[in-house]
């Protein structure tokens, strides 16, 4: 809009003033701020918004563009005096619209243009320290920047104004908080400029940025660095991950346990009595493959959807010295080889609700899934099929489980799920609640109600080795069923430096036929266990006490011996302890064992994982101490000493037709060494030795040869991917 120069000359300065005024009120311009506010800001499309005015007319300049021309005049048409390089810092002492006057090193002055015709500014402008910028309406004494009278009206600076509603960040009566671009090191990578040719590399998702930079190459067998097989990158889409886990567990065990002479035959001549030779050995190889497909954001939040499938391959060989110990047919001899393929997990997990910003969640999990009833597996630890609702609240301080499970029958010689057999007629209903940081931070309390309904009244169910396990050959060996409710309270965690775990259970229910009284009986039993440990530098010392009630009279209408549903207790040195790890037989009291493998209860079941619960048992009491010595990051030595008693031996006396069996069960002493050559859990080697030195009670149950001291030696190699 050019006007005839002479006639409009007097207008130009005022117009320039008016139109160049910004939101930052200039006091000597008496216009009402509202007028300024209402002045339509004119910013050419595609141009950068100009920086604010300086109070004292001084500006700090830092060049952002690779080069900026210095013009003689404040017009782009004027001669170029020099070129400023990127990163140059200088001071401007005048501003004319979008142009700033700077002084070159040789003393000349020139003008540089902020951003005419560009959307990125050529340089950053720091409007000095004595800025007084106020909201429209505040009184601020700001001298107007001098306007060069020689400015050509035709090339008057393009009208510029900041948008009126731009938010000004400012402390009261202080200086505005403006992001100030820090000094640029010219050797640094420049910030990206949208107008420059794209210097970008396409990346499928944020997980593969590291890949594209070529810094890390994925190695499929390396689980510690980014690995798609370990769920570090999506396999399809943006949030579907696949996680593969492979574990190889190799075990060799040699032991000496009371072993009965086969009833209708014997391995050797002159087998005149009940007790045979007790040396046994077992070799077992498990291959566990865990396949998991997740939808989520890995560590950022719980997965929304998970499909998991865990098949397990097992191969086992056992050798004993008597026939009819491994299989019911004595012609099978003294050696048994078996193998099995099982499905230990096969479930779908769906997170149907996120309850808080801390990703408290509600999940439903359907299928064959692992479940543990309390912190150490005292009552129920299994992989049953079922439906479980679980979740958390209050940033994971509350957790709950609500579940129904139907137990899967097991392959006898591997202990793994056998989905080829019909499901057991045994239901477990669980409701529990966890409270983290109960009483003190680091201690979790759990309350639980578990109800077990067993309806296994079919005649003569045999296990894979041909032994009848349901109903157990026990008492009158007639089929029976039962309901039992367990009320439990457990805690796990630490009080200061004292690590503690404790569990209390009360079992109440009804057995519809007691095998001794041959009448219905009430179940009423309790169980309590506590373990306390403390670390002294590299030594952890622990003490354990355990009590499971026993039945004092199998012929009354009450069964007061405690039995779990399927126990797998991690207590008192479980992996190495002889009593807990081994299935100690009874011999001569029925087709039952005194205790089950990986079980602490003297439950007198036919089979720990395939038999029914039995509440007519002697109970057990344990007091033990143990210590773990972390000799080096690779080596750990573990020692345990447990003293065991029966709670009440009446049931044993009845079964064995033997009076006054003493309550002293014996002393269980064990030691183990653990070696981890790579400092990680990927390769773990264990060796342990355990012995049960028979107390008076156990000596009464067995013969002098195999009964005085029972022992076991174990080697185990665990490889994990």
């Amino acid at each position, binding site marked *: 809009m050019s006007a005839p120069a002479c006639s409009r000359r007097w207008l130009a300065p005022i117009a320039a003033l008016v139109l160049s005024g910004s939101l930052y009120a200039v006091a000597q311009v008496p216009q009402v701020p509202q007028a300024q506010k209402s002045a339509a800001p004119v910013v050419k499309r595609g141009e950068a918004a100009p920086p604010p005015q300086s109070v004292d007319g001084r500006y700090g300049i830092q060049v952002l563009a690779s080069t900026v021309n210095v013009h003689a005049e404040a017009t782009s048409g004027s001669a170029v005096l020099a070129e400023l390089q990127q990163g140059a810092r200088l001071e401007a002492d005048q501003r004319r619209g979008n142009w700033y006057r700077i002084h070159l090193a040789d003393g000349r002055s020139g003008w540089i243009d902020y951003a005419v015709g560009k959307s990125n500014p050529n340089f950053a402008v720091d409007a000095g320290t004595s800025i007084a910028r106020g909201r429209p309406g505040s009184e601020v004494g700001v001298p107007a920047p001098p306007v060069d009278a020689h400015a050509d009206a035709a090339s008057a600076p393009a009208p510029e104004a900041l948008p009126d509603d731009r938010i000004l960040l400012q402390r009261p009566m202080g200086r505005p908080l403006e992001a100030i671009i820090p000094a640029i090191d010219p050797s640094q990578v420049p910030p990206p400029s949208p107008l420059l040719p794209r210097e970008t590399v396409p990346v499928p998702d944020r997980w593969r940025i590291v890949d594209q930079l070529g810094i890390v190459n994925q190695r499929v067998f390396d689980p510690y660095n980014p690995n798609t097989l370990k769920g570090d990158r999506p396999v399809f889409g943006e949030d579907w991950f696949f996680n593969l886990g492979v574990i190889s567990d190799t075990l060799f065990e040699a032991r000496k346990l009371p072993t009965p002479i086969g009833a209708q035959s014997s391995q050797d001549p*002159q087998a*005149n*009595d009940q*007790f045979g030779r007790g040396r046994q050995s077992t070799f077992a190889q498990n291959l566990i493959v865990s396949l998991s497909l997740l939808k989520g954001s890995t560590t950022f939040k719980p997965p929304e959807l998970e499909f998991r499938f865990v098949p397990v391959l097992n191969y086992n060989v056992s050798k004993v010295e008597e026939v009819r110990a491994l299989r019911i*047919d004595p012609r099978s001899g003294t050696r048994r080889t078996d193998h099995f393929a099982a499905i230990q997990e096969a479930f779908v997990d769906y997170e149907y609700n996120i309850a808080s910003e801390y990703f408290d969640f509600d999940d439903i999990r359907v299928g064959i899934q692992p479940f543990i009833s309390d912190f150490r597996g005292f009552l129920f630890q299994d992989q049953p099929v079922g439906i479980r609702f679980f979740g958390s609240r209050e940033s994971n301080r509350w957790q709950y489980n609500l579940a129904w499970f139907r137990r899967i029958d097991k392959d006898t010689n591997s202990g793994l799920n056998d989905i080829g057999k019909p499901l057991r007629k045994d239901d477990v209903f669980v409701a529990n609640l966890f409270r983290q940081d109960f009483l003190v931070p680091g201690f979790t309390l759990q309350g639980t109600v578990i109800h077990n309904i067993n309806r296994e009244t079919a005649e003569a169910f045999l296990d894979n080795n041909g032994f009848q396990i349901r109903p157990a050959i026990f008492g009158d060996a007639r089929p029976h069923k039962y309901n039992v409710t367990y009320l439990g309270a457990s805690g796990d965690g630490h009080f200061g430096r004292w690590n503690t775990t404790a569990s209390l259970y009360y079992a109440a229910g009804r057995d519809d036929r007691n095998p001794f009284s041959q009448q219905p009986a009430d179940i009423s039993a309790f169980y309590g266990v506590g373990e306390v440990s403390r670390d002294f530098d590299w030594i952890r010392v622990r003490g354990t006490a355990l009590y499971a009630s026993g039945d004092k009279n199998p012929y009354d209408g009450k069964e007061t011996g405690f039995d779990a549903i399927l126990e797998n207790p991690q207590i008192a040195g479980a992996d190495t302890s002889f009593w807990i790890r081994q299935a100690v037989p009874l*011999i001569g009291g029925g087709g039952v064992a005194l205790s089950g493998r990986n079980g602490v209860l003297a439950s007198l079941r036919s089979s720990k994982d395939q038999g029914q619960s039995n509440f007519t048992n002697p109970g057990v009491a344990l007091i033990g101490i143990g210590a773990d010595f972390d000799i080096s990051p690779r080596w750990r030595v573990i020692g345990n000493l447990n003293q065991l008693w029966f709670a009440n031996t009446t049931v044993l006396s009845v079964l*064995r037709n033997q*009076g006054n069996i003493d309550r002293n069960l014996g002393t269980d002493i064990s030691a183990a060494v653990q070696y981890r050559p790579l400092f990680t859990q990927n390769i773990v080697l264990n060796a342990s030795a355990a012995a049960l030195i028979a107390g008076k009670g156990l000596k009464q149950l*067995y013969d002098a040869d195999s*009964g005085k001291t029972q022992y076991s030696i174990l080697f185990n190699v665990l490889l994990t991917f």
Partner: protein
Amino acid sequence: MVVDTNGDILGLTRTPDAPVFGTDVAVQKARTAAFFSNVNAAAVLAALPAASYLTPPATSSIAGYVTAMRTFLGDPTALANGIAYSNRSVGNLARPFFPDGIEGTANGPLSKPFPAQWSPFNDGLQLDLIFNVLRASVGAPVPGLPPPLDPSSCTGDPRLKNGIQIFPGSFPIYRGPTLIGAVGVSGDGIDQDDMISFLGLANAGKALGTGIGNAVPAIRADTLVPQGEGTRLRYVNCPQAPFNDSTEQNVCAGL
């Protein structure tokens, strides 16, 4: 009950509460042990007439059991070679399943096939030995039968006057290598019966010092393994903790 090699009773003792039929059983057991351990057993059995069934008419040869025994044990001199049989050993061979209790196996040589023929009322040699006399005693004698060696015997043979028993509780008595009789016990259970007869005989031998006692281990039936691993015959099986107020175990070991 102690009998001699002819099955004649030498002595009997019983507790006041023993049932009357127990006397019958004890002597049956003793006679069985004495008979089967006798080197004349095969000859005597082979000479007995076949059992002649009524409905449907059929015969079951007694000599056939000898043949079956010899085939089963893989020994053509079985029942004529002086192997000492306790009643437990005879019982092992007289079940419809061998090994006893395992379904689907063939019957023992002294028994009948299951389920084709065997029943508690048709259990093999034990019934067949007495069947003809039993028939005659209910008025249906077998026509054309030769006169028995002993008309007062249920089996026709004087050594087995009241038939055999096929469950444990009796042992042959030896003086050195010579069979001189047998002892049989009927009581609270088979393991107790075994212990009382076997241990009693061993203790008696020690007490008397006249050389009598159990068979030497080398000739006992538990040296026989008829059908491969896991089929060894048993000779004796004593129970656990058998003595009152004592925790002694393995009381028969080494005897």
